[in-house]
């Protein structure tokens, strides 16, 4: 019997209409856990670098985390893995909500989709009964609209649905996969789903997910739950300069109405302008009133006591659900206000687009227009006001009409296509993907490394465990570390206590920076393999889940015996495999840089040193390619063999990349 996991994947070939239930190899669970880890393994094995995002041979994998659907609080994540049309690397997108647990109950750990359907279809998974059905009647329907129609059509109010909107159907590179309360939004996974002709996946499951050592496992779950209760009632007191919101459990953006930190620290428009005096008493009152009017309820994902989401009912519009910072992305990109943010997010959610990238693409287009690079000829019929323009451009992009067809490929590819100096306006990207609109002063060495090397290409999915700033006094820092049980080692407390404010970029010292970055990232990789939500774990300071309780939680759930060292090793293996997939697709050191204007004060020598040291720390060579020795140490011999065969690693030395360092 398999514990925590079901032991079966669903293999769907949309070209041939073939459906298979395939038993998985339990030894892969031992090596990679599940979720991201086993997704990456499948992608490495079955999608060689010659396969493009819109090739029928590209896979679209919905992988539930290993603990997903067990009673472990917040274990509900589904990891969506494919080749991204935007970055041409592995897309690392995720969603919470209710889809993953339902899939597990239907008896599957993953859905692996290949091929392309000649006509629009949806997948209906009802326990053992799986069908590919015609979806022509759903063409052009919104994400939530589709879900509602399918629930009625199938008379299954309990079914969970992941669907694309019009954006996915039209292969917009920022298309998301919408799932009611949650969505897999980053890196264009919705475009791949649309390319495959798959409108939606409907799941209903009523089977058990078993636990290996139930009494021990429940004891751990109850411990986590009481810690959550404590943290929900007692927000952390944070160092100056850190936003209040990070002191809470979860990302309680929909509960809080104080937006001073986001509106004054994040850049407006096309990630350009800081408005340090924007937040006034009057604004606060007006925004509060707006939020109270439309957010009718705070909502949570499957088995999670934290309420990161909001049920949003804007008068006259279909109710939708929102989470996190997306409430401000459109608002700030359009230099508008919160009321507009809630209105346009409703339409954007139905279309199914990424709420981070899309507003930036629109602001980018409007900047090009102001600069005369795009003209009235490119924008026939565009309204005069900023809000009107945002709605107009959103429609054009999602429909791929006129200039929208160019913009739908994201700022990087659009700029290349437009030319005339447009490249300089696509200034906020890493690895071709739009980033949070942050423009700051002094180089932050910790964030420098995370921005450069993060393969999720999305900072909020890498950071979290270590405070963003130190307390002013040493006493306060000593106080902070007293109950810091989550650190993997006592030395992390020392790094923090010794960190004086205002000592960037040389402090914390590079070796500490490497250690801190590695720890922060590792915790996210554990979450992504287990399906725990970062908002109750890796994204959170002093979280309920940490390196000391996770091995026991995973072991008691699965029956495998994993200790801390074992969990680190699995995590490194997964991390390294993701790197290897991207290295095989051409990722090198030259791609690993933050947006040029992210910090005003830059230190090229220090930055090079940080990268050198971090690569070494990670077991990678100077090009960021995992060394042969390191790969073999993780049991990834098949990876090193492949990299050697392709000439990416040399056989003799292993540590030398064929491409020299001078390439950067």
């Amino acid at each position, binding site marked *: 019997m398999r514990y925590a996991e079901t032991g079966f994947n669903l293999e769907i070939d949309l070209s041939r209409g073939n459906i298979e239930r395939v038993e998985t190899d339990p030894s892969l669970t031992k090596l990679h856990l599940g979720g991201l880890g086993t997704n990456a393994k499948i992608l490495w094995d079955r999608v060689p670098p010659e396969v493009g995002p819109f090739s029928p041979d590209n896979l679209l994998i919905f992988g539930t985390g290993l603990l997903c659907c067990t009673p472990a609080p917040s274990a509900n994540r589904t990891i969506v893995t494919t080749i991204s049309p935007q970055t041409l690397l592995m897309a690392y997108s995720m969603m919470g909500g*209710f889809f993953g647990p339902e899939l597990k109950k239907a008896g599957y750990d993953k859905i692996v989709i290949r091929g392309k359907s000649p006509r629009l279809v949806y997948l209906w998974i009802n326990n053992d009964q799986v069908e590919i059905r015609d979806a022509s009647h759903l063409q052009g329907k919104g994400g939530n609209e589709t879900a509602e129609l399918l629930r009625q059509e199938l008379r299954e109010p309990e079914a969970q649905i992941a669907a694309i909107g019009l954006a996915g159907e039209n292969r917009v590179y920022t298309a998301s996969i919408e799932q009611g309360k949650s969505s897999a939004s980053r890196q264009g996974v919705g475009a791949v789903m649309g390319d495959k002709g798959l409108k939606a996946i409907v799941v209903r499951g009523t089977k058990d997910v078993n*636990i290996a050592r139930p*009494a021990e496992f429940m004891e751990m779950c109850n411990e986590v739950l009481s810690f959550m209760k404590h943290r929900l009632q007692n927000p952390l007191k944070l160092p100056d300069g850190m936003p209040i919101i990070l002191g809470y459990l979860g990302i309680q953006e929909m509960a809080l109405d104080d937006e001073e930190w986001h509106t004054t620290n994040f850049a407006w428009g096309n990630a350009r302008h800081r408005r340090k005096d924007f937040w006034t008493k009057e604004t606060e009152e007006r925004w509060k009133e707006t939020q109270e009017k439309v957010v009718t*309820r705070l*909502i949570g994902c499957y088995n999670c006591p934290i309420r990161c989401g909001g*049920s949003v009912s804007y008068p006259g519009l279909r109710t939708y659900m929102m989470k996190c910072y997306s409430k401000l992305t459109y608002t700030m990109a359009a230099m508008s206000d919160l009321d507009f943010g809630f209105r346009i997010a409703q339409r954007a959610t139905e279309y199914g687009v990424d709420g981070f990238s899309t507003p930036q693409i629109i602001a980018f287009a409007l900047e090009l227009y102001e600069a005369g690079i795009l003209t009235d000829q490119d924008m026939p019929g565009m309204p005069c006001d900023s809000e009107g323009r945002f709605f107009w451009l959103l429609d054009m992009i999602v429909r791929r009409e006129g200039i929208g067809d160019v913009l739908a490929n994201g700022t990087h590819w659009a700029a290349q296509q437009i030319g005339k100096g447009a490249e300089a306006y696509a200034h906020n990207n890493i690895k071709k993907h739009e980033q949070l609109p942050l423009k700051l002063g002094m180089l932050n060495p910790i964030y420098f490394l995370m921005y450069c090397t993060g393969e999720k290409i999305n900072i909020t999915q890498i950071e979290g465990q270590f405070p963003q700033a130190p307390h002013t006094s040493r006493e306060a820092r000593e106080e902070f570390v007293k109950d810091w049980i989550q650190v993997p080692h006592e030395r992390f407390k020392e790094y923090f206590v010794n960190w004086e404010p205002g000592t960037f970029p040389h402090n914390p010292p590079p070796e500490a920076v490497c250690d801190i970055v590695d720890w922060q990232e590792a915790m996210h990789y554990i979450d992504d393999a287990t399906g725990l939500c970062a908002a109750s774990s890796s994204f959170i300071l002093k979280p309920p889940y940490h390196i000391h309780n996770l091995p026991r939680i995973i072991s008691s759930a699965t029956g495998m015996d994993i200790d801390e060292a074992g969990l680190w090793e699995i995590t490194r293996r997964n991390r390294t495999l993701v790197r290897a997939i991207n290295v095989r697709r051409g990722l090198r050191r030259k791609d690993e840089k933050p947006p040029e204007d992210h910090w005003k004060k830059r230190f090229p020598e220090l930055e090079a040193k940080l990268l050198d040291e971090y690569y070494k720390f990670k077991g990678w060579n100077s090009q960021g390619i995992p060394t042969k020795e390191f790969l073999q140490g993780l049991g990834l011999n098949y990876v090193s063999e492949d990299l050697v065969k392709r000439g990416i690693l040399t056989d003799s030395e292993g540590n030398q990349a064929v491409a020299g360092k001078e390439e950067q």
Partner: protein
Amino acid sequence: MGEGKKKLVKTIKIDVDKCSGCRACEVICSAFHATPKYSSNNARSRIRVIHEPLKDKYVPVYAGEYTAAECMGRDKYVIDGKEYGECDFCRASCPSRNSFKEPDSGLPLRCDMCEGEEEPLCVKWCLVDALTYEEREEEVEGIEEEGEEKKEEMEITLESMVDKYGLQKVVDAAARMAKKG
């Protein structure tokens, strides 16, 4: 006049406005009552969050009596501008819906308030305070308590099987099983 008889009334107060729709109550309920214990399957839960997210409706409802037939008519309630069907509040394990039935056998489920635990576990796991456990003593008048039959779980199950297959078939099956030992 002697003192009236008292009985302990166990209540769960449900604040639908506070429900976040996370279904933690379903998860812990089904895990606690599962065989083997703590295997997870909220389809077996004795509390269900009846929900329609796109209408902002969330109603936690506890499994109550088994009923062999569905209601004749069903009324609608409008509360705070939102329309609810009568079933949205109904505790019955009834033929009109899948809730409150074992998914494999279709046999009815009923909330037992997690007998033996300090408080019902759904209440313990509801950190958003939508569920609150309350106990109170009530004086019982008139009808003698002793005369009332308390139906045990097995009896409810049997009754529903009799409804489904007819008494004779159930008796035959029981006899066959007894022979096999």
